[in-house]
């Protein structure tokens, strides 16, 4: 590591969350946008000595109107598939100049965020390459609203099976247009980059947990990755007042698994840990039926969806992380 990281101890309870805002008024995201909340919590956790790079997507287009940016910290746009390269370039520039005495030596957080389209689809190879550079301290945060939301809600590799989107509308001949199963991005990156010291999933419904994951990712050293699941009222088609609840339902039904991979050790945390220990999962129908994007689902569709979630929890090596199960004995 060329520079040391900032000391960012975990936030102990909601009351100890810093009051200072680094992501303030000025943005124009939809009411109930959980991705905007992820931005706010992320930068609250990181603090002011941070540079943020943002890929194209809702969190760029709806967030940084000229003259009314909500970002208090230095912020720069990067291309849709460039979160990885933006983080590498920024961290490399800082590291090089500090090492050569061209800039004051100090730990500066570097965070690049991207949506699921920018991260799980287009930018995957750049993120993978960035995770191989142990010498740079940085965090890539992929906020996953499960569609290309900014361009009017199109299906991405991270959209759930069967979801209605403007590129996968249910029709009279084909009820299910999106036949792809959601990509397992964090798990794939953790398995593929064993030298990376920290990879985690998160959800803004569990705010302190998410903030502490950001803090750990920024202080542990080297490149790190966090994948959050963000309910999106526009794309998922529900009343904005239910965003928080939907995030919790995603976790409680076992559709979304909260975990950390730290120095090669996997820990399921929060409600996901309880589910792994045998607590009963809520039926996926509880989650699906709350959202218009699944309104066309038949009983069979819901049963199929449930069966896949059951397979994940019952057959996967580690639920939500590593699919291939060892030979049954």
């Amino acid at each position, binding site marked *: 590591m060329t520079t040391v990281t900032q000391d960012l101890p975990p936030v102990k309870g909601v009351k100890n969350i810093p009051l200072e805002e680094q992501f303030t008024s000025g943005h124009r995201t939809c009411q109930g946008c959980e991705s905007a909340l992820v931005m706010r919590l992320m930068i609250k956790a990181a603090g002011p000595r941070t*540079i943020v790079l943002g890929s194209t997507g809702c969190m760029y287009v709806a967030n940084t109107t000229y003259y009314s940016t909500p970002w208090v910290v*230095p912020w720069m746009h990067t291309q849709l598939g460039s979160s990885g390269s933006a983080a590498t370039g920024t961290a490399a*520039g800082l590291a090089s100049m500090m*090492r050569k005495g061209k800039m004051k030596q100090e730990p500066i957080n570097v965070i690049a965020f991207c949506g699921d389209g920018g991260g799980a689809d287009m930018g995957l190879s750049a993120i993978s*390459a960035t995770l191989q550079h142990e010498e740079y301290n940085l965090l890539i945060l992929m906020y996953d609203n499960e569609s290309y939301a900014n361009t009017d809600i199109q299906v991405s590799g991270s959209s759930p099976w069967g979801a209605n989107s403007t590129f996968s509308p249910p029709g009279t001949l084909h009820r299910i247009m999106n036949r792809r199963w959601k990509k397992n991005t964090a798990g794939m990156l953790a398995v593929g980059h064993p030298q990376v010291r920290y990879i985690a999933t998160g959800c803004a419904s569990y705010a302190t947990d998410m903030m502490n994951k950001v803090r750990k990712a920024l202080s542990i050293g080297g490149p790190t990755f966090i994948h959050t699941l963000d309910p999106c009222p526009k794309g998922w088609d529900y009343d904005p007042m239910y965003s928080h609840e939907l995030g919790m339902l995603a976790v409680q039904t076992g559709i979304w698994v909260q975990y950390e991979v730290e120095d090669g050790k996997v820990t399921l945390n929060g409600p996901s840990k309880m589910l792994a220990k045998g607590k009963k999962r809520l039926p996926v129908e509880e989650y699906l039926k709350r959202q218009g994007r699944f309104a066309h689902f038949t009983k069979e569709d819901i049963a199929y969806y449930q069966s896949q979630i059951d397979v994940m929890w019952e057959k996967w090596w580690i639920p939500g992380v590593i699919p291939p199960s060892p030979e049954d004995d």
Partner: protein
Amino acid sequence: MTTVETQLFQTEQEELISGSEAIAIACALADVDVITAYPIRPYDTVMQYVSKLKADGVFDCDFIVAESEHSQFEIVKHASAVGARTFCGSSGVGWFYAFEAITVTAGLRMPVVAMVGNRALDDPGAFGTEHNDALAVRDLGWMLYWVATAQEALDIALLSWRVAEDPRVLLPMAISCDGSFLTHSQAIVNVPTSEQVRKFLPPYDRGKLQLHPDNPITIAPQVNEDWLMEIRRQSDEAMHRSVAVIEEAYADFKKTFNRGDPSAFIEEYMTEDAEILIVGMGTLALPVRVAIRRMREAGKKVGFVRIKFFRPFPTEELQRVLGGVKAVCVIDRDYSFGSPSFAGVLFHELRSTLYPLEKRPLMLNFIAGLGGREIHTNDVNHMVDIVQKAIDTGKIEQEATWIGVRE
């Protein structure tokens, strides 16, 4: 600065090196901070030399082997935003793979310096030189220079950072080098000392444009129709200003290093009393000069103008030099299918340059040397014969002629 000084740069030295190696040495002399590489022939030889210079401790930089050209250019763009001096490059389809990053680098006014090892845009497979790769950035806000020798490659690399990083300019610059003919051919190059270079090239200072927690600016917000036009206009003005900055830097270059042409923008060869002027870019200068020498011996009044800066385009200088002649013979190592004359890119630029003149010369275009095919002195003779015929008859039978093509 804690650059590892080595024997190489403490005294002026003559080295037998290729164009690529000359640019790699320029990177070390300029103390570049972040360099990104991705393999594609023929430019990538520069990165082989850079990596070796770093491995041997000749200079200290963050040398990153990216996973694609797109990332290669994005990484240096972002490194440039925090204030790091940068270098990268590519060739042919690699340059095109990076195109999204290349265009925003100019849009954001990041003074990245890149080498283009000119290469055909294959398919079908071809490694050889062709200028369409680099020319594709001509409208985007990149300064664009064509070198003809290894010495010029080193010299112009040093000039590039100085001009690109000048606060009056802040535009990226591409150094075009003909694949193989320049990237891989060795010549004697005078390598200056670090001390000389430091005198010529001040450190890169972004000032209040630096992305840093002490200066929490927002770069590239959503501006849309409210502001984009003003911002494009600023790039246009920066390109206008670059002309004087180049002149100033080139004059200083000549003083510091004791070499250089009269003009930073064009090179003239036997132009004074010429009736026919050949115009071209890059290493084709070599066979053209030889052919002209022989034609002169035979009493033919032919000269040559090598365009060095394609952007900013030296319009006035070219009007002055080409204005009085009978005919202009433009050699394009490129193509522009479906263009006004179904001719080359340079030809159209020159025709629009000369259009405002009261007395316009005849203009003929020759597409030659595509895919790295050699341009021989005989080819040049053939072109001049065609031009002469047009002068004699006062008639242009065909504006663009493809040279040496099997029918």
